[in-house]
Protein backbone atom coordinates (compact mmCIF):
# COMPACT_ATOMS: atom_id res chain seq x y z
CA UNK A 1 0.00 0.00 0.00
CA UNK A 2 2.81 2.35 0.91
CA UNK A 3 4.35 1.54 -2.46
CA UNK A 4 1.06 2.45 -4.16
CA UNK A 5 0.94 5.83 -2.45
CA UNK A 6 4.57 6.50 -3.25
CA UNK A 7 3.95 5.71 -6.94
CA UNK A 8 1.03 8.16 -7.16
CA UNK A 9 2.82 10.90 -5.22
CA UNK A 10 6.00 10.56 -7.27
CA UNK A 11 4.19 10.48 -10.62
CA UNK A 12 1.98 13.41 -9.62
CA UNK A 13 5.01 15.53 -8.72
CA UNK A 14 6.71 14.57 -12.00
CA UNK A 15 3.54 15.43 -13.94
CA UNK A 16 3.11 18.79 -12.16
CA UNK A 17 6.74 19.76 -12.72
CA UNK A 18 6.39 18.80 -16.40
CA UNK A 19 3.18 20.74 -16.99
CA UNK A 20 3.82 23.72 -14.76
CA UNK A 21 5.86 25.83 -17.22
CA UNK A 22 3.04 25.46 -19.78
CA UNK A 23 0.42 26.57 -17.28
CA UNK A 24 2.60 29.46 -16.19
CA UNK A 25 3.05 30.44 -19.85
CA UNK A 26 -0.72 30.49 -20.39
CA UNK A 27 -1.38 32.42 -17.16
CA UNK A 28 1.38 34.93 -17.92
CA UNK A 29 0.02 35.50 -21.43
CA UNK A 30 -3.14 36.91 -19.82
CA UNK A 31 -1.30 39.20 -17.40
CA UNK A 32 0.48 42.54 -17.46
CA UNK A 33 4.26 42.42 -17.41
CA UNK A 34 4.45 43.87 -13.86
CA UNK A 35 2.06 41.25 -12.53
CA UNK A 36 4.15 38.48 -14.06
CA UNK A 37 7.24 39.78 -12.23
CA UNK A 38 5.22 39.97 -9.01
CA UNK A 39 4.76 36.21 -9.35
CA UNK A 40 1.04 36.05 -9.95
CA UNK A 41 -0.42 32.59 -10.50
CA UNK A 42 -3.93 33.75 -11.37
CA UNK A 43 -5.25 34.45 -14.86
CA UNK A 44 -5.35 38.20 -15.56
CA UNK A 45 -7.41 40.35 -17.88
CA UNK A 46 -4.68 41.61 -20.20
CA UNK A 47 -4.95 38.97 -22.92
CA UNK A 48 -6.59 41.46 -25.29
CA UNK A 49 -4.08 44.21 -24.50
CA UNK A 50 -1.16 41.80 -25.00
CA UNK A 51 -2.67 40.69 -28.30
CA UNK A 52 -2.97 44.24 -29.64
CA UNK A 53 0.61 44.94 -28.57
CA UNK A 54 1.72 41.92 -30.59
CA UNK A 55 -0.21 43.25 -33.59
CA UNK A 56 1.52 46.65 -33.22
CA UNK A 57 5.05 45.75 -32.21
CA UNK A 58 5.89 42.13 -33.05
CA UNK A 59 6.27 40.67 -36.55
CA UNK A 60 4.58 37.45 -35.51
CA UNK A 61 2.55 37.01 -38.72
CA UNK A 62 5.53 37.08 -41.10
CA UNK A 63 7.54 34.80 -38.78
CA UNK A 64 4.72 32.25 -38.66
CA UNK A 65 4.43 32.40 -42.44
CA UNK A 66 8.19 31.96 -42.93
CA UNK A 67 8.26 29.03 -40.53
CA UNK A 68 5.24 27.42 -42.20
CA UNK A 69 6.76 27.74 -45.68
CA UNK A 70 10.10 26.31 -44.55
CA UNK A 71 8.64 23.48 -42.46
CA UNK A 72 6.10 22.38 -45.06
CA UNK A 73 8.56 22.35 -47.95
CA UNK A 74 11.20 20.60 -45.81
CA UNK A 75 8.68 17.94 -44.78
CA UNK A 76 7.44 17.21 -48.31
CA UNK A 77 10.93 17.00 -49.79
CA UNK A 78 12.35 15.04 -46.85
CA UNK A 79 9.59 12.42 -47.01
CA UNK A 80 9.95 12.03 -50.76
CA UNK A 81 13.75 11.69 -50.77
CA UNK A 82 13.99 9.46 -47.69
CA UNK A 83 11.15 7.12 -48.64
CA UNK A 84 12.49 6.67 -52.17
CA UNK A 85 15.87 5.81 -50.68
CA UNK A 86 14.57 3.57 -47.88
CA UNK A 87 12.47 1.71 -50.48
CA UNK A 88 15.42 1.44 -52.87
CA UNK A 89 17.78 0.13 -50.19
CA UNK A 90 15.34 -2.54 -49.00
CA UNK A 91 13.53 -3.66 -52.19
CA UNK A 92 16.56 -3.58 -54.49
CA UNK A 93 18.89 -4.85 -51.82
CA UNK A 94 22.47 -5.66 -52.82
CA UNK A 95 25.84 -5.87 -51.10
CA UNK A 96 27.07 -2.67 -52.70
CA UNK A 97 23.94 -0.79 -51.63
CA UNK A 98 24.31 -2.07 -48.06
CA UNK A 99 27.81 -0.62 -47.98
CA UNK A 100 26.50 2.72 -49.24
CA UNK A 101 23.73 2.56 -46.63
CA UNK A 102 26.22 2.06 -43.80
CA UNK A 103 28.31 4.96 -45.06
CA UNK A 104 25.19 7.17 -45.09
CA UNK A 105 24.49 6.15 -41.48
CA UNK A 106 27.88 7.55 -40.47
CA UNK A 107 26.50 11.02 -41.23
CA UNK A 108 24.32 10.68 -38.10
CA UNK A 109 27.51 11.00 -36.03
CA UNK A 110 28.32 14.41 -37.49
CA UNK A 111 27.19 17.18 -35.14
CA UNK A 112 25.54 20.18 -36.77
CA UNK A 113 27.98 22.50 -35.04
CA UNK A 114 30.72 20.94 -37.16
CA UNK A 115 28.77 21.45 -40.39
CA UNK A 116 27.73 25.02 -39.67
CA UNK A 117 30.98 26.74 -40.68
CA UNK A 118 31.67 24.88 -43.96
CA UNK A 119 27.98 25.05 -44.92
CA UNK A 120 27.93 28.79 -44.30
CA UNK A 121 30.98 29.19 -46.53
CA UNK A 122 29.47 26.92 -49.21
CA UNK A 123 26.31 29.01 -49.29
CA UNK A 124 28.48 32.12 -49.30
CA UNK A 125 30.05 30.91 -52.55
CA UNK A 126 26.64 30.01 -53.95
CA UNK A 127 25.37 33.51 -53.09
CA UNK A 128 27.95 35.08 -55.40
CA UNK A 129 26.71 33.00 -58.35
CA UNK A 130 23.02 32.35 -57.66
CA UNK A 131 21.80 34.77 -54.95
CA UNK A 132 18.28 33.27 -55.12
CA UNK A 133 19.40 30.12 -53.28
CA UNK A 134 22.26 31.61 -51.25
CA UNK A 135 22.59 33.17 -47.79
CA UNK A 136 19.41 34.79 -46.46
CA UNK A 137 17.03 32.66 -48.54
CA UNK A 138 14.49 30.01 -47.62
CA UNK A 139 16.22 27.52 -49.93
CA UNK A 140 19.43 27.83 -47.95
CA UNK A 141 17.53 26.94 -44.78
CA UNK A 142 15.71 24.00 -46.37
CA UNK A 143 18.43 22.30 -48.45
CA UNK A 144 20.86 21.10 -45.73
CA UNK A 145 18.13 19.68 -43.48
CA UNK A 146 16.07 17.97 -46.14
CA UNK A 147 17.96 14.66 -46.21
CA UNK A 148 18.76 12.84 -42.99
CA UNK A 149 20.16 9.36 -42.59
CA UNK A 150 17.77 8.89 -39.69
CA UNK A 151 14.73 9.24 -41.95
CA UNK A 152 16.20 6.95 -44.62
CA UNK A 153 16.87 4.40 -41.88
CA UNK A 154 13.32 4.86 -40.60
CA UNK A 155 11.81 4.19 -44.03
CA UNK A 156 14.06 1.21 -44.64
CA UNK A 157 12.97 -0.33 -41.32
CA UNK A 158 9.30 0.29 -42.16
CA UNK A 159 9.75 -1.22 -45.64
CA UNK A 160 10.92 -4.49 -44.04
CA UNK A 161 7.30 -5.12 -42.96
CA UNK A 162 5.92 -4.28 -46.40
CA UNK A 163 4.30 -7.26 -48.24
CA UNK A 164 6.53 -7.55 -51.30
CA UNK A 165 3.96 -9.62 -53.25
CA UNK A 166 1.96 -6.42 -53.67
CA UNK A 167 4.79 -4.93 -55.72
CA UNK A 168 4.94 -8.00 -57.93
CA UNK A 169 1.15 -7.82 -58.45
CA UNK A 170 1.52 -4.19 -59.52
CA UNK A 171 4.29 -5.04 -61.98
CA UNK A 172 2.15 -7.81 -63.51
CA UNK A 173 -0.67 -5.28 -63.86
CA UNK A 174 1.68 -3.31 -66.08
CA UNK A 175 2.85 -0.55 -63.72
CA UNK A 176 6.42 0.65 -64.20
CA UNK A 177 8.77 0.94 -61.16
CA UNK A 178 7.84 4.56 -60.45
CA UNK A 179 4.17 3.62 -60.74
CA UNK A 180 4.62 0.70 -58.35
CA UNK A 181 6.24 3.05 -55.82
CA UNK A 182 3.63 5.83 -55.98
CA UNK A 183 0.48 3.75 -56.62
CA UNK A 184 1.15 0.77 -54.36
CA UNK A 185 3.91 1.48 -51.82
CA UNK A 186 3.02 5.06 -50.81
CA UNK A 187 -0.72 4.43 -50.14
CA UNK A 188 -0.01 1.30 -48.05
CA UNK A 189 2.64 3.05 -45.98
CA UNK A 190 0.41 5.93 -44.85
CA UNK A 191 1.13 5.38 -41.13
CA UNK A 192 4.89 5.46 -41.66
CA UNK A 193 4.56 8.63 -43.71
CA UNK A 194 2.41 10.20 -40.98
CA UNK A 195 4.98 9.40 -38.29
CA UNK A 196 7.85 10.66 -40.45
CA UNK A 197 5.93 13.82 -41.37
CA UNK A 198 5.29 14.72 -37.73
CA UNK A 199 8.90 14.22 -36.68
CA UNK A 200 10.24 16.17 -39.65
CA UNK A 201 7.73 18.99 -39.34
CA UNK A 202 8.43 19.40 -35.62
CA UNK A 203 12.20 19.45 -35.97
CA UNK A 204 12.01 21.85 -38.90
CA UNK A 205 9.55 24.15 -37.09
CA UNK A 206 11.81 24.21 -34.05
CA UNK A 207 15.14 24.40 -35.88
CA UNK A 208 17.24 27.24 -34.52
CA UNK A 209 20.99 27.17 -35.13
CA UNK A 210 21.11 26.96 -38.94
CA UNK A 211 18.36 29.57 -39.56
CA UNK A 212 20.16 31.79 -37.02
CA UNK A 213 23.34 31.53 -39.08
CA UNK A 214 21.87 31.77 -42.55
CA UNK A 215 18.88 34.13 -42.22
CA UNK A 216 20.20 37.61 -41.64
CA UNK A 217 17.47 40.12 -42.35
CA UNK A 218 14.69 40.56 -39.77
CA UNK A 219 11.85 40.03 -42.27
CA UNK A 220 13.18 36.53 -43.05
CA UNK A 221 13.01 35.49 -39.37
CA UNK A 222 11.41 32.19 -38.41
CA UNK A 223 9.45 31.69 -35.19
CA UNK A 224 12.38 30.40 -33.07
CA UNK A 225 14.51 33.36 -34.20
CA UNK A 226 11.72 35.77 -33.27
CA UNK A 227 11.28 34.19 -29.83
CA UNK A 228 15.02 34.16 -29.22
CA UNK A 229 15.17 37.81 -30.17
CA UNK A 230 12.31 38.73 -27.82
CA UNK A 231 13.89 36.63 -25.07
CA UNK A 232 17.22 38.43 -25.24
CA UNK A 233 15.65 41.85 -24.75
CA UNK A 234 16.84 43.67 -21.60
CA UNK A 235 13.44 45.05 -20.67
CA UNK A 236 11.06 42.34 -21.84
CA UNK A 237 7.29 42.69 -21.75
CA UNK A 238 6.65 39.33 -20.10
CA UNK A 239 2.94 39.14 -20.85
CA UNK A 240 3.40 39.93 -24.54
CA UNK A 241 6.37 37.58 -24.94
CA UNK A 242 4.56 34.72 -23.23
CA UNK A 243 1.60 35.19 -25.57
CA UNK A 244 3.96 35.08 -28.57
CA UNK A 245 5.54 31.87 -27.27
CA UNK A 246 2.09 30.42 -26.61
CA UNK A 247 0.91 31.14 -30.16
CA UNK A 248 4.17 29.85 -31.62
CA UNK A 249 3.90 26.61 -29.64
CA UNK A 250 0.28 25.97 -30.66
CA UNK A 251 0.94 24.41 -34.11
CA UNK A 252 3.28 21.76 -32.69
CA UNK A 253 1.05 21.17 -29.67
CA UNK A 254 -1.99 20.63 -31.92
CA UNK A 255 -0.06 18.24 -34.17
CA UNK A 256 1.09 16.38 -31.06
CA UNK A 257 -2.34 15.98 -29.49
CA UNK A 258 -4.03 14.99 -32.76
CA UNK A 259 -1.41 12.43 -33.71
CA UNK A 260 0.15 11.27 -30.45
CA UNK A 261 0.37 7.62 -31.53
CA UNK A 262 2.17 8.41 -34.78
CA UNK A 263 4.44 10.78 -32.92
CA UNK A 264 5.66 8.14 -30.51
CA UNK A 265 5.91 5.61 -33.36
CA UNK A 266 8.11 8.00 -35.31
CA UNK A 267 10.39 8.59 -32.36
CA UNK A 268 10.84 5.02 -31.23
CA UNK A 269 10.90 3.66 -34.78
CA UNK A 270 14.67 3.71 -34.77
CA UNK A 271 15.21 1.29 -31.89
CA UNK A 272 12.52 -1.29 -32.59
Amino acid at each position, binding site marked *: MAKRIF*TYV*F*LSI*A*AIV*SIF*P*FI*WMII*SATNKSVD*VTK*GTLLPGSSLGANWSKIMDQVDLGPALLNSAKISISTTILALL*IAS*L*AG*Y*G*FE*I*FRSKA*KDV*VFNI*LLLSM*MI*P*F*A*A*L*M*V*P*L*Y*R*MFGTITQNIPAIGINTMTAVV*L*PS*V*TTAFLIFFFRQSTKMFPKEMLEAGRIDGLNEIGVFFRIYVPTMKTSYAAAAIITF*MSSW*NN*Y*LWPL*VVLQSPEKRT*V*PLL*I*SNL*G*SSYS*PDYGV*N*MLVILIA*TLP*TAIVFFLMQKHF*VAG*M*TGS*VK
Partner: protein
Amino acid sequence: MSKVKTNMNINAKTSAIGWSFIAIAVIMICAFYFYPMIKALNLSFQSGTGTNLSYVGGDNYARLFKDQTFITALKNTFIFLIIQVPIMIVLAMFISVLLNDSKLKFKGFFRTAIFLPAVTSLVAYSVIFKYLFGNDGLINSLLTNLHLIDAPIQWITDPFWAKITIIIAITWRWTGYNMIFYLSALQNIDNSIYEAARIDGASAFRQFSQITIPLLKPIILFTSITSTIGTLQLFDEVMNITKGGPGNSTMTLSQYIYNLSFKYTPDFGYAATVSYAVVILIVIFSILQFKLAGDKNG
Protein backbone atom coordinates in the same frame (compact mmCIF):
# COMPACT_ATOMS: atom_id res chain seq x y z
CA MET B 1 23.05 -18.52 -74.12
CA SER B 2 20.64 -15.80 -75.10
CA LYS B 3 18.57 -16.57 -72.00
CA VAL B 4 21.55 -15.97 -69.74
CA LYS B 5 22.15 -12.72 -71.52
CA THR B 6 18.56 -11.49 -71.03
CA ASN B 7 18.75 -12.47 -67.35
CA MET B 8 21.87 -10.41 -66.98
CA ASN B 9 20.19 -7.52 -68.74
CA ILE B 10 17.23 -7.74 -66.38
CA ASN B 11 19.55 -7.88 -63.39
CA ALA B 12 21.53 -4.92 -64.65
CA LYS B 13 18.28 -3.10 -65.29
CA THR B 14 16.81 -3.75 -61.81
CA SER B 15 20.14 -2.81 -60.29
CA ALA B 16 20.11 0.47 -62.20
CA ILE B 17 16.52 1.12 -61.10
CA GLY B 18 17.53 0.39 -57.49
CA TRP B 19 20.39 2.86 -57.66
CA SER B 20 18.16 5.53 -59.16
CA PHE B 21 15.80 5.25 -56.16
CA ILE B 22 18.61 6.03 -53.74
CA ALA B 23 20.51 8.48 -55.95
CA ILE B 24 19.01 11.77 -54.69
CA ALA B 25 19.53 10.80 -51.05
CA VAL B 26 23.14 9.77 -51.65
CA ILE B 27 23.90 12.99 -53.52
CA MET B 28 22.25 15.12 -50.85
CA ILE B 29 24.02 13.42 -47.91
CA CYS B 30 27.34 13.74 -49.73
CA ALA B 31 26.71 17.39 -50.57
CA PHE B 32 25.50 18.49 -47.14
CA TYR B 33 27.38 16.17 -44.76
CA PHE B 34 30.48 14.54 -46.24
CA TYR B 35 31.64 17.30 -48.57
CA PRO B 36 31.36 20.00 -45.85
CA MET B 37 33.27 17.74 -43.45
CA ILE B 38 36.12 17.46 -45.98
CA LYS B 39 36.02 21.23 -46.46
CA ALA B 40 36.12 21.66 -42.68
CA LEU B 41 39.13 19.37 -42.36
CA ASN B 42 40.94 21.50 -44.92
CA LEU B 43 39.80 24.67 -43.12
CA SER B 44 41.06 23.37 -39.78
CA PHE B 45 44.63 23.75 -41.03
CA GLN B 46 44.10 27.40 -41.95
CA SER B 47 43.81 30.54 -39.90
CA GLY B 48 43.03 34.22 -40.38
CA THR B 49 40.10 36.58 -40.18
CA GLY B 50 37.08 36.36 -42.50
CA THR B 51 38.11 35.26 -45.97
CA ASN B 52 41.83 36.03 -45.48
CA LEU B 53 42.89 32.50 -44.64
CA SER B 54 46.33 30.99 -44.92
CA TYR B 55 47.67 27.53 -44.13
CA VAL B 56 49.20 27.23 -40.67
CA GLY B 57 49.74 23.46 -40.49
CA GLY B 58 48.83 21.98 -37.12
CA ASP B 59 48.97 25.34 -35.27
CA ASN B 60 45.20 25.40 -34.71
CA TYR B 61 45.31 21.99 -33.07
CA ALA B 62 48.18 23.10 -30.81
CA ARG B 63 46.21 26.25 -29.99
CA LEU B 64 43.34 24.12 -28.64
CA PHE B 65 45.46 22.98 -25.69
CA LYS B 66 46.40 26.53 -24.71
CA ASP B 67 43.00 28.10 -25.36
CA GLN B 68 41.42 28.86 -21.96
CA THR B 69 37.93 29.36 -23.44
CA PHE B 70 38.11 26.02 -25.23
CA ILE B 71 39.27 24.27 -22.06
CA THR B 72 36.47 25.93 -20.05
CA ALA B 73 33.90 24.94 -22.68
CA LEU B 74 35.20 21.38 -22.60
CA LYS B 75 35.05 21.32 -18.79
CA ASN B 76 31.51 22.71 -18.76
CA THR B 77 30.39 20.13 -21.31
CA PHE B 78 31.83 17.36 -19.13
CA ILE B 79 30.18 18.74 -16.00
CA PHE B 80 26.84 18.74 -17.84
CA LEU B 81 27.56 15.22 -19.11
CA ILE B 82 28.64 13.66 -15.83
CA ILE B 83 25.88 15.21 -13.72
CA GLN B 84 22.93 15.65 -16.04
CA VAL B 85 22.93 12.52 -18.21
CA PRO B 86 22.95 9.97 -15.32
CA ILE B 87 20.29 11.89 -13.36
CA MET B 88 18.06 12.01 -16.40
CA ILE B 89 18.56 8.36 -17.42
CA VAL B 90 17.86 7.09 -13.89
CA LEU B 91 14.83 9.35 -13.60
CA ALA B 92 13.47 8.26 -16.99
CA MET B 93 13.95 4.60 -16.13
CA PHE B 94 12.41 5.00 -12.68
CA ILE B 95 9.33 6.81 -14.00
CA SER B 96 8.83 4.27 -16.77
CA VAL B 97 8.99 1.38 -14.29
CA LEU B 98 6.35 3.12 -12.13
CA LEU B 99 4.22 3.76 -15.23
CA ASN B 100 4.48 0.18 -16.45
CA ASP B 101 2.23 -1.04 -13.61
CA SER B 102 -0.88 -2.57 -15.20
CA LYS B 103 -3.06 -1.61 -12.20
CA LEU B 104 -2.01 2.06 -12.29
CA LYS B 105 -4.86 4.56 -12.73
CA PHE B 106 -4.52 7.75 -14.82
CA LYS B 107 -1.62 6.11 -16.65
CA GLY B 108 -2.39 7.94 -19.92
CA PHE B 109 -2.50 11.29 -18.14
CA PHE B 110 0.82 10.76 -16.35
CA ARG B 111 2.53 9.56 -19.53
CA THR B 112 1.27 12.44 -21.68
CA ALA B 113 2.05 15.02 -19.00
CA ILE B 114 5.62 13.83 -18.46
CA PHE B 115 6.21 13.52 -22.19
CA LEU B 116 4.83 16.98 -22.99
CA PRO B 117 8.12 18.91 -22.48
CA ALA B 118 9.65 16.87 -25.33
CA VAL B 119 7.23 18.49 -27.79
CA THR B 120 8.24 22.07 -27.06
CA SER B 121 10.68 24.04 -29.13
CA LEU B 122 14.10 24.31 -27.49
CA VAL B 123 14.13 28.07 -27.92
CA ALA B 124 10.63 28.54 -26.50
CA TYR B 125 11.26 26.49 -23.38
CA SER B 126 14.66 28.11 -22.87
CA VAL B 127 13.12 31.57 -22.84
CA ILE B 128 10.41 30.39 -20.41
CA PHE B 129 13.08 28.93 -18.12
CA LYS B 130 15.09 32.13 -18.36
CA TYR B 131 12.03 34.06 -17.14
CA LEU B 132 11.15 31.45 -14.48
CA PHE B 133 14.67 31.51 -13.06
CA GLY B 134 15.27 35.25 -13.46
CA ASN B 135 16.32 37.34 -10.47
CA ASP B 136 12.75 38.55 -10.02
CA GLY B 137 11.38 35.37 -11.58
CA LEU B 138 8.72 33.07 -10.23
CA ILE B 139 11.08 30.47 -8.73
CA ASN B 140 12.77 33.11 -6.57
CA SER B 141 9.43 34.63 -5.47
CA LEU B 142 8.10 31.20 -4.55
CA LEU B 143 11.23 30.25 -2.62
CA THR B 144 11.23 33.62 -0.81
CA ASN B 145 7.52 33.37 0.03
CA LEU B 146 8.04 29.89 1.43
CA HIS B 147 10.94 31.35 3.50
CA LEU B 148 13.31 28.79 2.03
CA ILE B 149 15.75 31.53 1.01
CA ASP B 150 16.46 35.02 2.35
CA ALA B 151 17.87 36.60 -0.78
CA PRO B 152 17.01 35.71 -4.39
CA ILE B 153 19.31 33.07 -5.91
CA GLN B 154 21.28 34.37 -8.90
CA TRP B 155 20.08 31.50 -11.09
CA ILE B 156 21.31 33.09 -14.32
CA THR B 157 24.07 35.46 -13.23
CA ASP B 158 26.09 33.36 -10.78
CA PRO B 159 28.65 30.98 -12.37
CA PHE B 160 27.63 28.05 -10.13
CA TRP B 161 23.87 28.53 -10.22
CA ALA B 162 23.86 29.20 -13.97
CA LYS B 163 25.18 25.66 -14.52
CA ILE B 164 22.48 24.28 -12.19
CA THR B 165 19.80 26.18 -14.13
CA ILE B 166 21.00 24.70 -17.43
CA ILE B 167 21.04 21.21 -15.90
CA ILE B 168 17.50 21.63 -14.51
CA ALA B 169 16.30 22.93 -17.87
CA ILE B 170 17.77 20.08 -19.94
CA THR B 171 16.50 17.48 -17.46
CA TRP B 172 13.00 18.97 -17.67
CA ARG B 173 13.06 18.92 -21.47
CA TRP B 174 14.49 15.45 -22.12
CA THR B 175 13.42 13.10 -19.28
CA GLY B 176 10.00 12.42 -20.82
CA TYR B 177 11.57 11.89 -24.23
CA ASN B 178 13.89 9.20 -22.85
CA MET B 179 11.09 7.70 -20.77
CA ILE B 180 9.18 6.79 -23.96
CA PHE B 181 12.00 4.50 -25.07
CA TYR B 182 12.07 2.72 -21.70
CA LEU B 183 8.29 2.37 -21.68
CA SER B 184 8.15 0.77 -25.11
CA ALA B 185 10.96 -1.61 -24.11
CA LEU B 186 9.28 -2.51 -20.80
CA GLN B 187 6.05 -3.29 -22.62
CA ASN B 188 7.92 -5.89 -24.67
CA ILE B 189 9.19 -7.75 -21.60
CA ASP B 190 7.20 -10.92 -21.03
CA ASN B 191 5.36 -10.74 -17.71
CA SER B 192 5.86 -14.47 -17.06
CA ILE B 193 9.55 -13.81 -16.32
CA TYR B 194 8.51 -11.69 -13.32
CA GLU B 195 5.95 -14.27 -12.24
CA ALA B 196 8.59 -16.97 -12.26
CA ALA B 197 10.92 -14.72 -10.25
CA ARG B 198 8.17 -14.01 -7.73
CA ILE B 199 7.49 -17.73 -7.31
CA ASP B 200 11.22 -18.18 -6.68
CA GLY B 201 10.89 -15.55 -3.96
CA ALA B 202 12.88 -12.71 -5.62
CA SER B 203 12.29 -9.31 -3.99
CA ALA B 204 11.11 -6.30 -6.01
CA PHE B 205 14.62 -4.87 -5.91
CA ARG B 206 16.17 -8.13 -7.12
CA GLN B 207 13.58 -8.34 -9.90
CA PHE B 208 14.52 -4.83 -10.96
CA SER B 209 18.30 -5.33 -10.80
CA GLN B 210 18.41 -8.90 -12.15
CA ILE B 211 15.65 -8.83 -14.76
CA THR B 212 14.60 -5.32 -15.71
CA ILE B 213 18.05 -3.70 -15.95
CA PRO B 214 19.68 -6.46 -18.03
CA LEU B 215 16.70 -6.52 -20.41
CA LEU B 216 16.76 -2.74 -20.72
CA LYS B 217 20.48 -2.63 -21.48
CA PRO B 218 20.12 -1.91 -25.21
CA ILE B 219 17.84 1.03 -24.36
CA ILE B 220 20.15 2.28 -21.61
CA LEU B 221 22.94 2.21 -24.16
CA PHE B 222 20.85 3.93 -26.83
CA THR B 223 19.59 6.70 -24.53
CA SER B 224 23.00 7.34 -23.02
CA ILE B 225 24.64 7.60 -26.44
CA THR B 226 21.99 9.95 -27.82
CA SER B 227 22.08 12.04 -24.61
CA THR B 228 25.88 12.21 -24.67
CA ILE B 229 25.89 13.31 -28.30
CA GLY B 230 23.11 15.79 -27.49
CA THR B 231 25.08 17.25 -24.59
CA LEU B 232 28.22 17.59 -26.71
CA GLN B 233 26.11 19.62 -29.15
CA LEU B 234 24.31 21.69 -26.53
CA PHE B 235 23.53 25.12 -28.00
CA ASP B 236 19.93 26.38 -28.04
CA GLU B 237 19.47 26.33 -24.25
CA VAL B 238 22.77 27.96 -23.41
CA MET B 239 22.40 30.57 -26.14
CA ASN B 240 18.92 31.56 -24.95
CA ILE B 241 19.25 31.22 -21.17
CA THR B 242 22.75 32.41 -20.31
CA LYS B 243 24.49 33.21 -23.64
CA GLY B 244 27.36 31.09 -22.30
CA GLY B 245 27.87 33.38 -19.34
CA PRO B 246 28.41 34.68 -16.77
CA GLY B 247 32.00 34.88 -17.95
CA ASN B 248 32.35 31.60 -19.77
CA SER B 249 30.81 29.56 -16.98
CA THR B 250 28.15 27.90 -19.14
CA MET B 251 30.02 28.14 -22.45
CA THR B 252 29.59 24.94 -24.47
CA LEU B 253 31.63 23.74 -27.44
CA SER B 254 28.84 24.50 -29.94
CA GLN B 255 28.36 27.97 -28.49
CA TYR B 256 32.11 28.55 -28.77
CA ILE B 257 32.15 27.45 -32.42
CA TYR B 258 29.24 29.82 -33.07
CA ASN B 259 31.00 32.69 -31.29
CA LEU B 260 34.28 32.07 -33.14
CA SER B 261 32.50 32.16 -36.49
CA PHE B 262 29.72 34.69 -36.09
CA LYS B 263 30.16 36.73 -32.92
CA TYR B 264 33.85 37.58 -32.57
CA THR B 265 35.94 38.59 -35.59
CA PRO B 266 35.38 35.43 -37.60
CA ASP B 267 38.16 32.83 -37.55
CA PHE B 268 36.56 30.06 -39.60
CA GLY B 269 39.76 28.00 -39.63
CA TYR B 270 40.03 27.74 -35.86
CA ALA B 271 36.25 27.25 -35.58
CA ALA B 272 36.61 24.24 -37.90
CA THR B 273 39.37 22.90 -35.65
CA VAL B 274 37.10 23.15 -32.60
CA SER B 275 34.35 21.37 -34.60
CA TYR B 276 36.72 18.54 -35.32
CA ALA B 277 37.46 18.27 -31.61
CA VAL B 278 33.70 17.79 -31.07
CA VAL B 279 33.51 15.17 -33.83
CA ILE B 280 36.44 13.26 -32.33
CA LEU B 281 34.81 13.39 -28.87
CA ILE B 282 31.53 12.06 -30.25
CA VAL B 283 33.29 9.19 -32.01
CA ILE B 284 35.31 8.34 -28.85
CA PHE B 285 32.21 8.40 -26.64
CA SER B 286 30.17 6.26 -29.01
CA ILE B 287 32.93 3.64 -29.22
CA LEU B 288 33.43 3.75 -25.43
CA GLN B 289 29.78 3.24 -24.70
CA PHE B 290 29.52 0.35 -27.17
CA LYS B 291 32.63 -1.25 -25.64
CA LEU B 292 31.31 -0.89 -22.09
CA ALA B 293 28.01 -2.51 -23.06
CA GLY B 294 29.81 -5.29 -24.91
CA ASP B 295 32.13 -6.08 -21.97
CA LYS B 296 29.26 -6.44 -19.54
CA ASN B 297 27.61 -8.85 -21.96
CA GLY B 298 30.63 -11.14 -22.06
